[in-house]
């Protein structure tokens, strides 16, 4: 069954190829179901391949399939193919699974949109790119998938491109990603220079040839790429703007899959990171700082999707914290559970937005629990998961990350703990303002609204995700090596987590209790503050609302000088210097020709004089040269 792995990316590609030319004719909703079916088929194949690999002995779970050689240049040979191992299979499974649910949701969400089929064309292309990213056997395929998801993200954010804010948000996402990609490319060049290969298996077996400087450089440059793609400090403003896209896009791309590509990349190159722990520490600090900052920003947001966007940035920060501490399986665990509950939260928000007739400001909502019971219940479960309240999945995953962080540095753990409290707090604030309290929307004159739960295409995925969010923690319970399924499954690829060294049960229980306290504490604070009050300006300062003014500072210190430089180049350098030089040369010729033309006087005697003078000079020259 493992050899059928090539079908995994193939199905979405086929979906794309069918829908791109014919989607409009196939129409609404069949085009959507075709796309969903393709992704579902991909999921099924992935599960079958997983079963096949799981049945093999641990040591031989790495399969590399090379389909063909793409380019050969000197010592460098880049092939196209996939690598089937526990890490890539895990990623592929949850990507295809969640994509299927979101495709199904989109059939309902985008029902009234004119460009229905185009949406699914992009979605399938996205799934294909993402799968190539995680399944690729060398860094070039990964990079191609990386770029592919970036492009699809641009298409999908700017899906309603007639809105200027959407078009510019798409551009912004693309540009921030490109900044990160610069780092990625530099890392590739460095590897080509030193190791003459980009295939994962080859690189990891030749790491001893690289000096510590090289290793640090490669890992940090790849991390720069991850910072761009996964919206870490300082490249995260694009994610909030990316909420201009339709909600399924936010759920799929900017919560569950594309933004996790950075985490995947760092986990994939963990052999390099193992050798340079200092780089790892830097990554951990950047991750936890991002988590904290994003959490504070989330406390002051009023758009229902922006709260979730900053929450995503924050959770990604946690994942990089885990990566930096060397606990890659914890990072993957958190990635999985985050995918479940974040997708759930986004899809539920989408239902709310649909029901509220595209109103997205939470200050204008309220008391939707009675009107939309299913949505409210699933959102509640999502909140409990992300807050980290036991026994939901978020508790186990976040606990894993934090306990590993303590081992590296208690300071990291402390910042992570504070962020956990904040997470519980601001998500609670959102739940309370949206679903409880007074129905503010009725007073605002929108009395004709009848919010209700959405159709089955939109509600079924919510239920499935709620179940996964509730019980997802079971795949990696820390109570003993026989229960840590995920950890042992990923061990051949990423090595074991740090905590095995200090494996005392008392410590486990202490961490667990502490995590629970943080979560419940944050939730309680939210309950007490926001249950009946809608506006608390003291807790929503402008500084936090404007995202620590990061966007504005980037604009002032980077964008404006660049524009000024560009204007200067266009007006002065191009027009005066370059054009001036070219025109100057032409003018020079004109002037000299004008002067020289006066030699042609037309008078015969002058010509004769010149001829004889020339003759005299030439003869004199030869006479002198041959020695008078």
């Amino acid at each position, binding site marked *: 069954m493992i050899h059928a792995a090539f079908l995994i990316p193939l199905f979405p590609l086929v979906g794309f190829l069918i829908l791109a030319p014919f989607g409009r004719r196939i129409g609404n909703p069949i085009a959507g179901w075709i796309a969903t079916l393709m992704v579902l088929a991909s999921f099924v194949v992935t599960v079958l391949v997983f079963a096949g690999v799981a049945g093999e002995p641990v040591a031989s779970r790495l399969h590399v399939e090379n389909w063909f050689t793409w380019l050969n240049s000197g010592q460098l040979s880049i092939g196209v193919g996939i690598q089937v191992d526990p890490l890539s299979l895990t990623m592929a499974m949850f990507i295809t699974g969640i994509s299927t649910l979101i495709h199904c949701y989109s059939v309902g969400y985008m029902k009234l949109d004119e460009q229905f089929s185009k949406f699914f064309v992009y979605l399938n292309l996205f799934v294909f790119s993402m799968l190539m990213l995680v399944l690729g056997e060398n860094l070039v395929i990964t990079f191609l998938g990386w770029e592919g998801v970036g492009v699809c993200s641009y298409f999908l954010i700017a899906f309603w491109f007639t809105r200027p804010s959407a078009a510019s948000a798409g551009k912004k996402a693309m540009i921030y990603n490109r900044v990160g990609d610069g780092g990625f490319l530099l890392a590739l060049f460095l590897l080509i220079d030193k190791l003459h290969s980009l295939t994962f298996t080859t690189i990891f077996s030749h790491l001893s040839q690289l000096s510590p400087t090289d290793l640090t450089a490669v890992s940090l440059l790849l991390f720069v790429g991850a910072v761009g793609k996964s919206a870490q400090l300082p490249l995260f403003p694009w994610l909030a703007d990316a909420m201009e896209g339709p909600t399924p896009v936010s759920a799929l791309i900017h919560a569950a899959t594309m933004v996790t590509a950075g985490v995947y990349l760092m986990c994939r190159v963990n052999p390099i990171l193992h050798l340079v722990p200092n780089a790892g520490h830097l990554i951990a600090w950047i991750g936890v700082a991002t988590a904290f900052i994003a959490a504070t920003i989330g406390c002051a947001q009023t758009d229902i999707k922006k709260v979730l966007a900053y929450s995503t940035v924050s959770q990604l920060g946690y994942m990089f914290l885990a990566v930096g501490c060397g606990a890659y399986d914890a990072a993957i665990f958190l990635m999985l559970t985050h995918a479940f509950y974040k997708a759930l939260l986004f899809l539920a928000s989408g239902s709310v937005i649909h029901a509220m007739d595209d109103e997205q400001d939470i200050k204008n909502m309220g008391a939707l629990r009675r009107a939309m019971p299913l949505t409210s219940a699933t959102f509640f479960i999502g909140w409990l998961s992300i807050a980290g309240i036991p026994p939901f999945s978020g508790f186990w995953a976040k606990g894993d990350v934090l306990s590993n962080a303590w081992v590296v540095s208690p300071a990291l753990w402390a910042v992570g703990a504070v962020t956990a409290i904040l997470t519980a707090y601001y998500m609670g604030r959102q739940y309370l303002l949206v679903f409880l309290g007074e129905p503010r929307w009725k007073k605002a004159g929108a009395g004709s609204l009848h919010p209700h739960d959405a159709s089955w295409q939109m509600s079924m995925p919510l239920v499935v995700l709620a179940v996964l969010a509730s019980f997802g923690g079971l795949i990696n319970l820390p109570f003993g090596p026989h229960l840590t399924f995920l950890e042992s499954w990923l061990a051949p690829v990423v090595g074991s987590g740090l905590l095995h060294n200090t494996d005392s049960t008392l410590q486990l229980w202490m961490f667990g209790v502490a995590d629970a306290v943080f979560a419940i504490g944050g939730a309680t604070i939210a309950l007490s503050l926001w249950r009946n009050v809608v506006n608390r300006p003291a807790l929503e300062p402008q500084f936090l609302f404007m995202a620590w003014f990061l966007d504005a500072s980037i604009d002032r210190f980077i964008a404006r000088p660049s524009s000024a430089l560009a204007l200067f180049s266009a007006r002065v350098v191009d027009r005066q210097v370059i054009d001036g030089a070219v025109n100057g040369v032409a003018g020079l010729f004109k002037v000299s020709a004008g002067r020289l033309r006066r030699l*042609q*006087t*037309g*008078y*015969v*005697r002058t010509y004769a004089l010149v001829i*004889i003078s020339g003759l005299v000079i030439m003869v004199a020259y030869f006479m002198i040269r041959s020695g008078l």
Partner: protein
Amino acid sequence: MTVNVSWYLTLAAVLFTIGAVGMLVRRNILVMFMCIELMLNAANLTFVSFSRELNDVGGQVAVFFVLIVAAAEVVVGLAIIVSIYRRHVGATADDQHLLKG
């Protein structure tokens, strides 16, 4: 005092110079033509001198040909001058400046 070749050559040089300067200075086309004849004669004198000096009859044959060509040249040149003068009586060399750049 013996007369040797160098005297003849000097005389030819003087004749040539006078012809050259005359051509540059005079404006009447016909006089310019005559100065050209002077220069040709100077060349002829030189040829003959060297022919005697080197015991080579080729010098004299060259003079023969120069003479012929000079005659032909005078014929054609005068025909041109005649046609110029038809249009504009009293024309000088300086009036023919249509080729001015």
